[in-house]
């Protein structure tokens, strides 16, 4: 295959310059202090200053809550969708909102959660009175969950849809009731769908800085916001890269926890 070199060169250049080099650079930059020298100060700071640790912990906690909310809504949705007629059409309609720019969706919630917006009108109507909804951590989590919802439904839908119907029938024939069948057959066999859903929701939830800026108020409450703050506001790239490395490590941990052992086979 003489032509292989020709095909490949542009792609290999991309791998070197836009995949390997940036990873290496962010790792290198994380060891550069404010004065421009090679140092481990950034890491020392990160683990000594309680604000950083607190922020990291909160970010992981928020991401976990966002993932939990989307999972709880998505599983029944995916399950019911597989039972409908024209399920592929309904699935398309679930995916359609993901094609709409995330900033427009966030912007919609600026209106919905505003002082006299529909959310507050609803709260007043059911007698709870109006509240400050915008710029709270709760509203950040709800909007993030809203945006991530389709990404959770999709893999779970595929997992349930791929499930062999005869297994369910066998389970019923052997005398299991609906719940037993679900818990012992359906749920374990669709666990991989849940895992990939958790992965695609959890990781972006750590880093959605535009949502925390627009909806969560101007607080630094996620790893992503902290990175943006350091890179684009305070211009401390060293510290920003250090938090970036922490984010990458967290991401790898999550992928390890939600990865499938089965995949090795391929």
């Amino acid at each position, binding site marked *: 295959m003489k032509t292989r070199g020709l*095909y490949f060169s542009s792609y290999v250049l*991309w791998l070197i310059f836009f995949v390997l080099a*940036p990873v290496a*650079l962010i790792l290198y930059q994380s060891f550069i202090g404010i004065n421009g020298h090679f140092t481990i100060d950034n890491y020392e700071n990160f683990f000594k200053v309680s604000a950083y640790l607190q922020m990291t912990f909160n970010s992981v906690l928020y991401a976990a809550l966002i993932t939990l909310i989307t999972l709880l809504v998505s599983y029944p949705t995916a399950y019911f969708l597989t039972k409908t007629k024209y399920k592929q059409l309904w699935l398309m309609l679930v995916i*359609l909102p993901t094609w709409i720019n995330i900033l427009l969706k966030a912007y919609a919630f600026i209106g919905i959660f505003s002082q006299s917006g529909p959310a507050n009108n609803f709260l007043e109507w059911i007698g709870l009175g109006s509240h400050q909804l915008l710029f709270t951590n709760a509203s950040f989590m709800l909007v993030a969950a809203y945006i991530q*919802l389709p990404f959770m439904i999709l*893999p779970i839908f*595929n997992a349930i849809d791929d499930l062999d119907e005869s297994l369910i029938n066998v389970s019923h024939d052997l005398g299991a009731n609906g719940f037993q069948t679900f818990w012992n057959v359906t749920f374990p066999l669709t666990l991989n769908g849940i895992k990939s859903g958790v992965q695609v929701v959890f990781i972006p939830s750590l880093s959605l800085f535009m949502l925390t800026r627009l909806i969560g108020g101007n607080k630094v409450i996620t790893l992503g916001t902290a990175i943006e703050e350091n890179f684009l506001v305070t211009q401390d790239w060293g510290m920003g890269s250090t938090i970036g490395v922490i984010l990458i490590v967290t991401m790898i941990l999550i992928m390890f926890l939600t990865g499938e052992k089965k995949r090795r086979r391929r």
Partner: protein
Amino acid sequence: MNNKKGHIGRNIYLVFVFLVLYLPIFYLIFYSFNSSGGMNHFSHFTWNNYKEIWADQRLILITVQTFFLAFLSSLLATIIGTSGALGIYSVKNRQIRTLILGLNNILLVSPDVIIGSSFLIFFTVLGINLGFTSVLLSHIAFSIPIVVLMVLPKLQEMNSSFINAAQDLGANQWEILKGVILPTITPGIIAGYFMAFTYSLDDFAVTFFVTGNGFETLSVEIYSRARQGISLEINALSALMFLFSLVLVIGYYFISRDSPKTNRREKKMHQDLIR
């Protein structure tokens, strides 16, 4: 009887989920026709917000720039990604192949802030000015892996006896590529181009990091306007973008339903891809 009740509960739940998914979008679009300035009180119907977009030179320029960027970056990403897929396909060593595919997927799973910040360091080290060039290079870079993932399965599905037959009939490498391989993988290439195009249109975070003052995309513009509060011009813009996404989705739907056989594989691949 019991079954019937279950159906009703099921449908109510699904209706609720679809309402949650779509109400915010329709809420935006609804108020784009509002004549008073906010998103709380609808006074009366007007097209004024749309006319405002039409009169807004800056916004139109940014829209044109955004689409130009998307067309160009996805075209280049499709070329490089397709060559990459052909290259990966020709690597026979399984371990090397897995390694390359692993590297290929790094940008797909990385959070946007990581891509954005590491590219920012990269461009600064190389001395590339932040602006159109850096944004274009970034968009090409993060679109390549999805093209590879769209094209590679088509290559693997290809019947290799066609290639052998072509070889036996005396075709050279280039003729095989042009006459046998490319026609077979065209649906994958088109799907890859589509995905790359939407990736580019949708991106905010990476662009936000690597763009200087001179170049703006719609996402960045919407972000800076939204930070200043509500302006119904954005609502009108979102209505137009919603219509455009609808057209894209329908287009993509017709492309991807070409052959029912590949649909299943693609679904599987989508799953692999987001893992």
